[in-house]
């Protein structure tokens, strides 16, 4: 079997996680190229539907990366994001999908290493889980929308 390379989407907040990702770059810390970042001003903007749609469109895993708890640039956007991630986990569980395919992580802008480590760990988690249940049926990820 061909080696499974998951597609992973990371919604990163501008002030912390996205900056941390840049920081990882400037320190030349490598992490799996599977992770593709979508920048948002605050993880509080990341709606449950964005996570669901990412899975629907073909992501094998999605995570939201925000500021450390208590350090959100917008006070509590990251707490809202966590609640939404938890809700999506519940829906996935009910659907028989692995809830580990979505996650919330927190880091500060300076934590380039943590960004890389998180990306690495999440990628490994998804590799262990295997391809998204939506792909196993050979149905592709094409969904009428």
């Amino acid at each position: 079997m061909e080696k499974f390379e998951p597609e992973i989407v990371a919604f990163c907040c501008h002030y912390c996680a996205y900056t941390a990702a840049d920081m990882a770059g400037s320190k030349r810390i490598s992490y799996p190229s599977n992770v593709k970042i979508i920048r948002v001003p605050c993880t509080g903007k990341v709606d449950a539907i964005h996570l669901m749609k990412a899975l629907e469109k073909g992501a094998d895993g999605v995570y939201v990366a925000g500021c450390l708890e208590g350090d959100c640039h917008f006070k509590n956007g990251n707490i809202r994001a966590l609640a939404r991630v938890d809700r999506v986990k519940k829906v996935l569980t009910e659907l028989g999908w692995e809830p580990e395919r979505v996650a919330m992580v927190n880091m500060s802008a300076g934590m380039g290493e943590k960004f890389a480590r998180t990306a690495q760990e999440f990628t490994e988690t998804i590799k262990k889980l295997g391809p998204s249940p939506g792909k196993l049926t050979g149905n592709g990820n094409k969904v009428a929308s």
Partner: protein
Amino acid sequence: MQKNNSSENALSPDRRVLVIGGGVGGIRAALDLAESRRDVLLIDKSYAIGGLMTQLDRTFPTNNCDLCTVSPYLSQGARERHLEIKPMTSLTKLEGEAGAFSATLVTEPRFIDTDKCTACGECAKQFPEAVRVTPGLDPRAPTCMRYPQATPFAFSIDMAKVTDIAALKKVCRADAILADDTQSKTVIDVASVVLCVGADLFDPAVLDNYGGGKFDNVVTGLEYERIMSASGPFQGNLKRKSDGRRPKKVAWIQCVGSRGINKGDVPYCSGVCCMYALKEAMVTRERFGDDIDTTIFFMDMRTYGKDYELYFNRARDEYKIRMIRSRPHSIVETAETKNLSITYALEDKPVQETEEFDMVVLSTGFRVGEDTKNLAGVLGIDVNPYDFAATHPFNPVLTSKPGVYVCGVIESPKDIPETMVQASAAAAMAVTDLPVIPKDREMDEMFPPERDVRGQDPRIGVFVCDCGFEIGGVLDVNKLLETAKTHPEVAVARAVGYGCSSESMANIEAMIKENNLNRVVIGGCSPRTHETKFQDLLQRVGLNKYLVEIVNLRDQNTWTHMNVPDQAQSKAVKLLNVGIAGVRKNRPLVDHTLPMSQNALVVGGGVTGMTAALKLADQGIKTYIVERAPSLGGLARSIRKTIEGEDVGVFVQGLVEKVAAHDNIQVLTRSIIVDHSGMPGLFKTGIQTGVRMNYMQIDHGVTVLATGAMANRPAQYGLGTCTNVITQLEMDSLLEEDTARIQSMEQVVMIQCVGSREPENPNCSRICCQAAMKNALRIKEISPDTQIFVLYRDMRTYGFQEEYYRKARDLGVKFIRFSLDMRPKVVETDNILAVHTHDFILDSDIEIAADCVVLSTGLIADDETTEDLALMFHLPRTGDNFFLEDHVKLRPVDMAQRGFFLAGTAHSPKTIRESITQAHAAAGRAQTLLAKKEINLGACVAKVDPDKCASCLVCVRVCPFDVPFINAEGVSQIDADKCHGCGVCAGDCPAKAIQLLAYEDDQILAKLDGLFER
């Protein structure tokens, strides 16, 4: 582009500031002034601005590409409306006095009309000898521009070398050749002058023992930078000059020409060479192979800057760079291999060693150039024995002549961050010679009217930077563009070299116009750093600035996946697809603005805080000083003398009185900050003040953090248990108060790095070596017979402090090195102190009886204060709890959170003089923000669709800032000027009636589509 002629509404010339020197410091000073809406003339004798930094490959401590780091500032320089740049120009006469100088300028002929030149390069191709080129190792650099992002972006002709002027004129399709261009002389009125000419680098050819300029494979640090640089002679490949082979073994020799007493040497320390050698060695191993053996020969490792010690530790421990503490005797070249043998002696070995290397880099330092010596005469300023500008003991940017200020290396050797601090400080000082700015001065439109693109089908231009090696070295940009072209809506897909260079920007502008593009995707650096630049570009061509998407191909792709180019390539394809899919959905948006509060809050009432407050208050800014202690003065209250011998107490008292008397300053002592809200330009901070802790709230546009640091008092070496073990601070007092006691001391032992450079506090405290020298010299003055022993790890008397170190040795102070694994022990028996240590030179343990042991304890962050404030203000801190500035290199006083500025020891340990400089700099930077008078809130705000709104109140409840409300129409209303743009409401709205502009759902979903399509 650059503004050569003053526009019609030009301001009266007496308001101008003349900045001499277009290096990074001069640019910073000029930009600060221009951003504060002061007219500036920046002159540089070269044909393009940028100075030394543009020739460097990467900069410490971030190891970023220098060009990439500096280029945003350069092109900013070109576009800033209050700034005029005159290259190839020098000052020949300065008359008059501060506020009303008359300056005579001479501009050399360029023979090229910069307005017409498109830098197509035809002239350079056909007449290479006549076009002025890159200095450095190899005259035939791949580009004939001095560097790819040159400003002004135009060539320059050396007419003396032109044989056929007609032929030259013929190749220039832009008709830019000015064959009869002549030297021109102008006399202008200026209010003040900022001198920022930097210095030359020492030419090691004058030394006979290292073969500089003689052996092919012996290069200077700068030449090594050029060799590694993507725009250098070998296109960024590390090669030996002798045979083009990649070296396997490279050595750096420190202090070449510096800290010496021999022929050609100068006694001072150049301050930057240790760091650049470490950087060059690290980059060598990182980029050219970790099989390259790298060795640094040094006397003292002087990594005294903020977090620099960590950098040194990384170089040694992670990059395995070999460190040899020795000043080599000589280098001998092997004739056939052109390899180099270095002969050196180790501290503890009597015999000399010899070792062969492929390449040797001489770490040469700064020398004041001949031109500059003349310039000092023209300006009429005093200089020190080494021709650097002589400056005020408490303010290093003040020269002996009122109205003339200095910054950067011409003041003393220093690195880029310190130059940036001084540049901002000098700019802030230069402003004081100008009248206070009238409040109603309006900004006028800089950009043409916007094209209406609504309803048009997307026509997307995709432009990918190769950024030299940074992107192009990892990705196949052309292949990437092929994929981009397959999108039907992509009209143009081009590679643009260094996208942020003026040339590429002009190209992109042209292509947008030519192809009638209405959407742009830039593949290059992080949008965090480069988005604004390209948004400006769009505005210049009449497109709304939100019609661009920046795809982060460098920071988040080639930099992290440089070792797996195929993965980087496929990720790049996807990221670009995301950008293309996303930009299709971008809509033109309008930025919102709010009037800015013109008040300033200075947190901390020490020397730094008071200095910053005075500077701001003098400019008519209402300034609040919040100080926790019952009185002003801070840590400086406990310091008596500076190393220069100045009385600190008198100085501090003077400041306190000035602050107290100032109409624009309100001092709040016994005060703490308890809450904070608002946004940059409109902050609200709650303060509990006075004995009764009354609450008050102040509005302010900017905040200066000057909370200082604490004197460290680690319980080491008997401190706190043995009476005669004291700190340098206590010795400083003792020297003023009890001369008799000093005279009674037969032997004094000083121990350096106490509580610093240790695992629990890994950084260097910077001030302790000079403090030890200061006190040692004072002891010797009072009591010449007292024997002084200084136990040190590396003496870090950087810059001109080196003189005091030398003087101390001359006076017989004994310096004994120790290492962490063999640290000294202080033993007290029957009230008699003795210090045991290992002497590496004698290679034996020794015992020194001491009447007094003085510990150099340095400064540590006030963890509690910085933590409280960091939480309240949302500010980042370093690992050792100092505040962390936005960019350690280029923005050393700006915090990442706009509107916050950092100065003094809250930033990192530093001397009073350095703190004062940073205070001026912070005040200056704060003024640039306040000068804008209004806050741009951006366009990223929540917008309610009243037709969809169910008035459910969810937005009202979840908004972290209580902005939404249900209006008279019965639907939610979110005022754009109050919205912070977090999008929490949009994420929770059950009716999907709220969208966050610029991040609307369809935009995010389109990006996901882009990622997963095909």
